């Protein structure tokens, strides 16, 4: 227990010491992403819009008719899912793509992963503009409770960091993990009820959806925004429980292999 406390303290100290480096890394990730595109930041807004448009056209016929605020239903799923995808996929390659630095300069390696997560988070913030814009179009009245959206986003951030730590470590050892993870993401997308509703499934199956952390977060968005309710306390605990679970697994995983990375670059 004491050693955990110590390593948390050390990590916090490292973060403070490396604040400048961290800022520069985030800046770099951001510029890498947007500098080369003519649309720049606009792309972050445009991409979810296009995705939404396609889904809206295709799926309204099948699922949309009985679902109130179907646009927001779709958009909640998309915003959460694309944030999760971006953060974990970029996080996965963060160590290997910086290997030339890691083998020459003694910097905390997780900074590269964290910076990718922060830039994905900022990107998510931009898509939230689209989200709120469509709230207006879809006749959803804004409510003070919308502040609570920060909670699932925080949970997702922690979850992404955890998953990122696991994936980035695995990717150092096995470079073809990226293909496997792509397949996994496709499956996850279909299992996260992004464009369909789950009320037609039997009760038992519906509960099984809660085993999927991404779905749990998406549902939080929907309950809050579409149904206008703040989820129950247990639900809050479930969100954070998943986040912490993956974060701790990630830390253990990362710590176990951290010192061996250097041999694999």
């Amino acid at each position, binding site marked *: 227990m004491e050693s955990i406390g110590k390593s948390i303290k050390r990590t916090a100290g490292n973060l403070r010491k*490396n604040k400048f480096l961290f800022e520069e*890394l985030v800046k770099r990730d951001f510029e890498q992403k947007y500098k080369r595109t003519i649309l720049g930041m606009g792309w972050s807004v445009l991409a979810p819009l296009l995705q939404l448009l396609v889904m809206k056209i295709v799926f309204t016929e099948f699922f949309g008719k009985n679902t109130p605020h179907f646009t927001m239903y779709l958009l909640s799923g998309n915003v959460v899912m694309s944030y999760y995808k971006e953060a974990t996929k970029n996080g996965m390659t963060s160590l290997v793509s910086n290997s030339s*630095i890691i*083998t020459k300069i003694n910097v905390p390696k997780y900074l590269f992963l964290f910076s990718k997560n922060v830039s994905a988070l900022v990107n998510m913030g931009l898509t939230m503009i689209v989200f709120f814009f469509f709230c207006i179009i879809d006749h959803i009245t804004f409510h003070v409770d919308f502040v609570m959206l920060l909670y699932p986003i925080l949970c997702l951030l922690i979850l992404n960091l955890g998953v990122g730590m696991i994936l980035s470590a695995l990717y150092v050892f*096995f470079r073809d993990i990226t293909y496997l993870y792509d397949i996994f993401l496709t499956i996850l997308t279909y299992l996260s009820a992004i464009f369909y509703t789950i009320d037609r499934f039997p009760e038992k199956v519906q509960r099984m959806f809660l085993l999927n952390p991404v779905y749990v977060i998406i549902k939080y968005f929907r309950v809050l925004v579409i149904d206008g309710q703040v989820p129950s306390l247990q639900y809050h605990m479930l969100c954070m429980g998943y986040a912490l679970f993956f974060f701790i697994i990630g830390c253990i995983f990362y710590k176990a292999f951290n010192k061996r990375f250097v041999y694999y670059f």
Partner: protein
Amino acid sequence: MSVIECNNVSIKYITGDLKAIGLKEYVVRKLTNNYHITEFWADRNITFSIEEGDMLGIIGSNGAGKSTLLKAITGIMVPSEGSVKVKGNIAALLELASGFDGNMTVKENAYLRGAMLGYTREFMNQKYKEIIEFSELGDFEDYMFKQLSSGMKSRLAFAIACLVEPDILILDEVLSVGDGAFRKKSGDKMKEILESGVTGILVSHSLSQVRELATKILWLDHGKQVLFTDDVETACNAYGEFLETKVLPTNWEETEKLSLDYIERVKNEREEKRSKEISKLEKILAEGDKDTAVEAAIKIISHRTPELLDLEKIKEWREENNS
């Protein structure tokens, strides 16, 4: 109190099929028993310590474990056995030009590198101009880094690294950057830093550089510590002899013997060169006409017993001869 203390440091290196291998291939190879990993000791039982103001020269042929040892000291690698204790902050200049981002501008790269070396933003704001001036990249500030020539890249890298005011400075073959003019400039700058009394470690294949700068020597060979001493002269001599004869000393007496051999050999070589020249001159003396013979005679005498010559008279004779 030592600034760097290495106690029985051993570093195991793993190599073999593990690099860039996929999960699929890993499983297949494991199943067919075709997965080979070799472990070897890149460094074995290295023990040394240096005090404040020391400059440790690490010598040894390729694959001796010098760079790996440096990685353990800087904390990039963790020793498999033993311990490394370091007091103060380290600035390590290992393979300077790598680790830059080609798609960022010179300015952005300078800031990022500064951040990695542990500078603060204020410090970089203050020193940025100096960096650009020193690296002579004033016209290229907003160029993409990949558009620079490799010489320019290393100049920038060196300029940033030079600003450090660390307690410990580690130099791995970095004193030979850029073209002639810049090399002189960087060499001067480095000397200035070294003379300020910084504690340092220097890895170099240039023996004369080590002789000039080092105050202690650590000699490694295939991961083993051959010797650690503050008798730089003897150690460098012995190493020079080792390069010729490939005989490793096992104790200090042998080292001293090697050193004497080296001095002897260098002396002999010099002697041989001299006697060759003299015999050449003697040939001229025997075969040539009068004037060239006299010239040759003067040269021989000036080699052997210069005190016999009256330079004034020779000058007069030469002038007379030419007219």
